[in-house]
């Protein structure tokens, strides 16, 4: 095996707020409060658990670890001899800027993959620094794990990283980075945004046997869905096209540009307005019939109310159910393992009107009938396995 470069970043304060009920760890103030309440940092321990499955191939890996508590210390404890990537805060309190600097330095040093331990906030920082420029994989250590960039457990993060570096069955895909606004969350309100995408290795379907051909990849599925949607779009109707890679495939099929993390207004022929807010959608609704095309955001199956709040209750109230086109690759529905799709528009009446069984377009002339419910998901739901 050729030598591989693996970046390693630990957000040492990730998850610190969770054990003392602070619903997050964003901001130095929160972290200090958590420590005062007796919180114990656990990110290092989880990051160590992820490194262990890589130890047997340590000779073939150049480990680039962020300095001090941000990776180096954990790597040494596990038994690696890392090359140290300096970060401004080494020794003192770490900040989001340290994560970003470390990720950029690893990209510039030619890392094949970066493992980072943290939560949704950490994923946001990594995303802002490197976007989809280099493959990364999250070790779940934070309080909030809604982003699809995290492996289910630290051990799985490590073994998936090993598989990817060996050149085994793991492939790359774009996975969503979503994050709650913690300030609002502490006040009891859920305001989530889709912040972007990271390139992460995944191994879904790697074990599909040879009795049947390999199911089409997510891209092919998205293209089939896009073809079905294009046929169903009515001439003259304006569509609010929600965020996501599946909705992006619809725009690509129509030959239109797409705001990956925002809502665009389109017709079958043209892009009317990019990255619009609720007000612009309502304004269009005044003049022309509106349809909505959305796909679930994040691993929990949120159809509305997470990352696409622009499609608000006021907008939804004026759109007939038959003009709400829900699209989702079958593999993503299957990954919910029987859990319903979720809505949290903030208006129980709108949630109630849409709740029940929805037709979901899963391919060309393929649909599923799937349950959708309103409200909050279960406590500590698991992120989508990568």
């Amino acid at each position, binding site marked *: 095996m050729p030598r591989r470069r693996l970046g390693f970043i630990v957000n040492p304060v990730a998850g610190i707020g969770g054990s003392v009920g602070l619903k997050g760890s964003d901001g130095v103030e929160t972290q200090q409060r958590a420590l005062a309440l007796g919180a114990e940092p656990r990110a290092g321990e989880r990051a160590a658990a992820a490194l262990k*499955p890589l130890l*047997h191939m340590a000779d073939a890996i150049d480990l680039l670890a962020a300095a001090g508590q941000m990776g180096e210390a954990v790597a040494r404890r596990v038994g690696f001899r890392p090359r140290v990537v300096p970060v401004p805060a080494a020794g003192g309190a770490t900040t989001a800027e340290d994560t970003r600097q470390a990720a950029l330095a690893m990209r510039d040093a030619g890392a094949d993959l970066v493992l980072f331990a943290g939560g949704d906030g950490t994923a946001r920082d990594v995303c802002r620094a490197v976007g989809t420029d280099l493959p990364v994989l999250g070790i779940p250590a934070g309080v909030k794990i809604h982003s699809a960039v995290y492996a*289910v*457990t630290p*051990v*799985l993060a*490590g*073994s*998936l990283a*090993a598989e990817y570096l060996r050149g*085994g*069955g793991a492939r790359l895909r774009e996975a969503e980075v979503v994050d709650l606004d913690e300030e609002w969350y502490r006040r009891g309100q859920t305001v989530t945004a889709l912040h972007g995408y990271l390139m992460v290795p995944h*191994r*879904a*379907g*790697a*074990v*599909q*046997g*040879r*009795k*049947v051909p*390999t*199911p089409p990849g997510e891209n092919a599925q998205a293209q089939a869905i896009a073809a079905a949607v294009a046929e169903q779009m009515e001439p003259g109707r304006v569509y609010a096209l929600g965020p996501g890679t599946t909705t992006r495939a619809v725009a690509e099929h129509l030959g239109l540009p797409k705001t990956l993390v925002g809502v665009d207004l389109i017709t079958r022929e043209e892009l009317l307005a990019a990255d619009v807010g609720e007000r612009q959608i309502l304004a269009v609704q005044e003049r022309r019939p509106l349809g909505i095309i959305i796909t679930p955001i994040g691993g929990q199956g949120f159809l509305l109310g997470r990352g696409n709040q622009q499609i608000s209750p006021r907008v939804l109230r004026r759109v007939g159910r038959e003009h709400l086109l829900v699209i989702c690759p*079958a*593999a993503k*529905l*299957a990954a919910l*393992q*029987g859990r319903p799709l979720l809505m949290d528009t903030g208006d129980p009446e709108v949630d109630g009107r849409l709740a*029940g*069984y929805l*037709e979901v377009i*899963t391919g060309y*002339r*393929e*649909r*599923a*009938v*799937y*349950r959708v419910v309103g409200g909050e998901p279960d406590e500590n739901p698991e992120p989508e*396995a990568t």
Partner: protein
Amino acid sequence: MKPIAPKPLPRRFHQARWDEPIIFELSRPGRRGVLLPPVGEEIRREVGDPVGELPDALRRTLPPALPEVSQNQVLRHYARLSQETLGVDLNIDVGQGTCTMKYSPKVNEQLVRAPGLTELHPRQDESTVQGILEVMHRLEEMLCEISGMDRVTLQPAAGSAAIYANVCMIRACQAARGQSHRDQAITTIFSHPSNAAAARVAGYEVITLYPDADGYPDPGALRAAVSERTAALLVTNPEDTGIFNPRIAEFVRVVHEAGGLCAYDQANANGILGITRAREAGFDLCHFNLHKTFSTPHGCGGPAAGACGVTAELAPFLPVPTVECQDGQFRLDYDRPQSIGKVRPFYGVAPNLVRAYAWIMSLGAEGLRRVAETAVLNNNYLLDRVLRIRGVSAPYAPGRRRIEQVRYSWEQLARETGVHTEDLEIRAADYGMHYWTSHHPFVVPEPMTLEPTESYSREDLDEYAAVLGRMSDEAYADPEIVRTAPHNSTVHRTHPEPFDDPEQWAVTWRAYLRKTGQKRG
């Protein structure tokens, strides 16, 4: 004398590794297995030159590029290859769930090698093939009894071909009713995907239902899915999870009330033989894979055989020909104006029909029911054994018993050790066990599907469970042992990526030489 030391479980298996070349690589110009003497002058005079009478278009200008090898080389080659496989007769083959790898009695193989069968030709006159037509006719009647249906055809070449024939009959029936606008077929995610595929090929839009919170097909979703566009319900029961849908009659009723027809995928009827029938649940059509339930060899290893059963209302649409009996004489009836036509050349795969007939006759009605009871008992015994192993679970319908198979999940093992189900697949071969990882649709994480059938003894199932338990122990103690397997087996690990790239496939030697840029040998 001392007694022989007892053999431990799992056994200390080590497979042969011969490094055997491909037979084309063994070829040397002029080498032969049999040297034929020159044709004598007298014979030549008598026979003339039979090849000389062939038209030019049928003559080769170059001899075929076959491997040139000696007799003992051929024997060695294939004997070695046979030692490098883990076939159904070599291992406890319960690890290929959904495929129903039951043991097929060897006496039936003797029957199909009898000259009375091997020398039949499909173009023979009906009067000279009364025996095989009688076997077919009686087998159809037995399958009618087993399914409760009014008519059966044995023409489809395999299970999926039978599903497709059923969909074609549904389409023809709806057309005859003036209902051709019905363009949707409903199935469930845990029904065999051939149902969705056959409906798509026949032009239907497919609607898939997902399980409810208890793991059963969701009747609420079905009610939301049916409409005036519903042509058909195509479902497996029990599903590939081993879970039997107890509300199946309600499913059929909902679809009938919406004007659709219902087809029961009984490809694998191993858990319900003599216990429940398609007819009692109200189905209009059903199909069997004879190679699953009725002990003909599995289709992937040779020609398969499928059977469709239909109610009297659907019978006019059956493929032609049908086998009819009049005054003790059997004949093939092509004069069926509403028939969907032919679904394969001639009529059925005769050797498999004889095997299925012999198997059913040797068991009788009581025996068939005992097959199902034994298969279900074996499966639930193995379920109990497997659930004692660390890291494995049986998702959906927790705490409930299963019918003939279980789709397990090693999700916990993977989370805790990083060892995946396909690592276990390869490690199992180190213990001489077959463990397969085809679980379409790919929904249950880290899946393992075990199906013991009626063929295996309690000792066999204990041995299989012991291998699974050992692999779990290894994964927790030293996952690298499992991850780097195989250690005692014939071949190294394969990488799946080339399977998705046709440029990296070569299914013939000639294609291999061409795609690797070598000259043709």
